[in-house]
């Protein structure tokens, strides 16, 4: 009887979605040439697809509910996920790290320049993801204007180089500093805002920066942007395009390692704990003696620093910046990386960036559906796996003579 009910429900869902998608997916209009095209095949696909998806959805919702019930009755909450068990197992983890390291070092010599360029983009997103992870993942502040700091870094290099001839290595720390400064500038007015308002205001901030870059021609050269930005030089020697790209690749590897190192240390420190406490409960956090304003500002500043830096690298890599590279959708892609990987989890964010940036590049047929898939990722992850693919693990302490109860992750 149960199965029959399910099938009936799935049929209803299927019919509902066929109805829902009918005008937009089946009919395509061309008002200019006054043609209407009917694509009935889409209706069939939606019907069949939603029929099966209904089962999958139902299955996962039930699993989630059962998990919640188990947790409530105090039974052992689900065993650590596979990814975590692998990460904890030193026998697998260490060699994997070595292999990944060797692969990363040899990459530009094995693969073409084109591939190396793609990898540089992916690494830039790793850095952006790790930066945003501080703000969203650790401190729980949903920042939708993160791309603004990226733009600040990119324009800092472009403009400082154009006007004053500053080199890449000079601007890199300046970009980081400007990022932090803008982070604090944004942070001050939004200190008192609740989560959802914060999201909208930061989104507005990002858009304001972009609109200013687009319209203030004297300053930023408007929509056409700035071109002929030099690539970084090695000890003053100008490199060919090929060598410069490889050079940038290694610079990026270095910067990513730096980011990982710093974020990891911050996360496991007095400041990192304060961020997480702030995310968990603002009022209790303050009552425990944590300065809310200060903690938020450090999160904004330290998150934005990495965006500023990666902006500088971005400008040096593409040799061209214009406002179109810094739309709200960039912010959302970075958010997607953090959410997919696992909020607060460094390895998760790295994996998220690599998956989300490399996959559309290598699956060309898929790339058109990239943003659509990102939307799905955000919803599905939140509904079924809010911790991300590789959730954050809390540090476990051991004490002499203490009975180890051993969970906590």
């Amino acid at each position: 009887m149960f199965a029959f009910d399910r099938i009936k429900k799935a049929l209803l869902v299927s019919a509902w979605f066929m109805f829902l998608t009918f005008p937009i997916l089946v009919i395509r209009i061309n008002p200019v040439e006054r043609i209407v095209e009917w694509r009935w095949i889409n209706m069939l696909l939606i019907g069949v697809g939603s029929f099966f998806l209904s089962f999958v959805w139902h299955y996962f919702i039930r699993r989630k509910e059962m998990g919640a019930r188990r947790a409530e009755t105090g039974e052992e909450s689900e065993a650590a996920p596979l990814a975590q068990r692998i990460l904890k197992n030193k026998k697998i983890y260490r060699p994997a790290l070595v292999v990944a390291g060797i692969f990363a070092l040899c990459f530009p010599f094995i693969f073409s320049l084109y591939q190396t360029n793609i990898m540089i983009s992916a690494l830039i997103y790793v850095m952006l993801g790790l930066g945003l992870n501080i703000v969203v993942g650790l401190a729980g502040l949903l920042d939708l204007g993160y791309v603004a700091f990226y733009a600040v870094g990119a324009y800092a290099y472009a403009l400082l180089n154009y006007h004053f001839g500053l080199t890449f290595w000079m601007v890199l720390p300046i970009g980081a500093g400007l990022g932090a400064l803008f982070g604090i500038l944004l942070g001050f007015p939004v200190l008192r805002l609740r989560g959802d308002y914060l999201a909208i205001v930061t989104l507005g901030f990002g858009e304001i920066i972009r609109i200013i870059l687009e319209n203030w021609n004297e300053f930023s050269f408007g929509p056409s942007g700035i071109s002929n930005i030099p690539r970084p030089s090695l000890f003053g020697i100008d490199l060919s395009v090929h060598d410069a790209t490889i050079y940038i690749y290694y610079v990026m590897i270095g910067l990513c390692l730096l980011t990982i190192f710093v974020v990891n240390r911050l996360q496991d420190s007095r400041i990192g704990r304060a961020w997480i406490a702030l995310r968990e409960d603002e009022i209790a956090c303050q009552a425990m003696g944590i300065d809310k304003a200060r903690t938020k500002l450090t999160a904004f500043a330290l998150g934005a620093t990495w965006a500023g830096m990666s902006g500088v690298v971005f400008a040096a890599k593409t040799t061209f910046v214009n406002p179109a590279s810094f739309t709200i959708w960039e912010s959302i892609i970075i958010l997607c990386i953090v959410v997919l990987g696992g909020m607060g989890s460094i390895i998760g964010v790295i994996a998220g960036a690599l998956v989300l940036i490399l996959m559309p590049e290598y699956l060309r047929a898929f790339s058109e559906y990239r943003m659509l898939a990102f939307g799905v990722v955000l919803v599905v992850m939140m509904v079924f796996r809010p911790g991300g693919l590789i959730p954050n693990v809390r540090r476990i302490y051991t004490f002499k003579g203490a009975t180890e109860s051993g969970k906590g992750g």
Partner: protein
Amino acid sequence: MESVLKVQNLGMNFGGLRALDSVDLAVGRNEIVALIGPNGAGKTTFFNCVTGIYPPTEGDILIAVRGKGDLKRINGLKPNRVTEKGLARTFQNIRLFPHMTVLENVMIGRHCRMAAGILGAVLRGGSTVREEQSAVQESYAILEKMGLAPFVNDFAKNLPYGAQRRLEIARAMATEPFLLLLDEPAAGMNPYETKELDDLIQRVRHEEGIAILLIEHDMKLVMSLSDRICVVDYGRKIAQGTPDEIRNNPAVIKAYLGEEMDA
């Protein structure tokens, strides 16, 4: 007696609502004072004013200055500053950090007694490492005292209810207070757990020398613990005295205790 907290003429308005009306209260060193009254009498509002969550409309809140005999006005200080000065609290509806481990919850309490900044955290120099280690040890010591050591690495949200209440007290104690404000610590506990809590609070007072101000509805606990009881109703203080005095105070019986004492 020498006071650690002295509240004078405290008044609090929410729009047109008078939540507190010229309430006076003092807590002496090493004293346990209970604040009782019917629901909505303004007890939690009183706590929120004292701990800086709401700035009071009128009146003065004075607390002892650590290591000195004199009192200092703390009106308008932010909650975190109040905690730094030596007042810590728990919440009526438990407010732990659910996705942090038990130990980390207590270490958050140590936050305001630690100094490591951004650079310290990144470079992890000797002083930072030592500070971290001692914070871990001290936090663990508190957990042991509170009987929470077996849960040290568990997520706070996975703790049994009674343990969560104790963890809130542990976390508050990690801030090194001289006065602890407990908001209905026994709410939802069974008689056995309440008895344990009674012993625990007594121990905190005697061993740590911490004064305690608590809001509580469990009259048995209040009568056994408190040195003094202060009764509020409709935002006003209607009586104050030893448990025996309160037990026999007609105004209190009328306003609040009546039905419970008859039962």
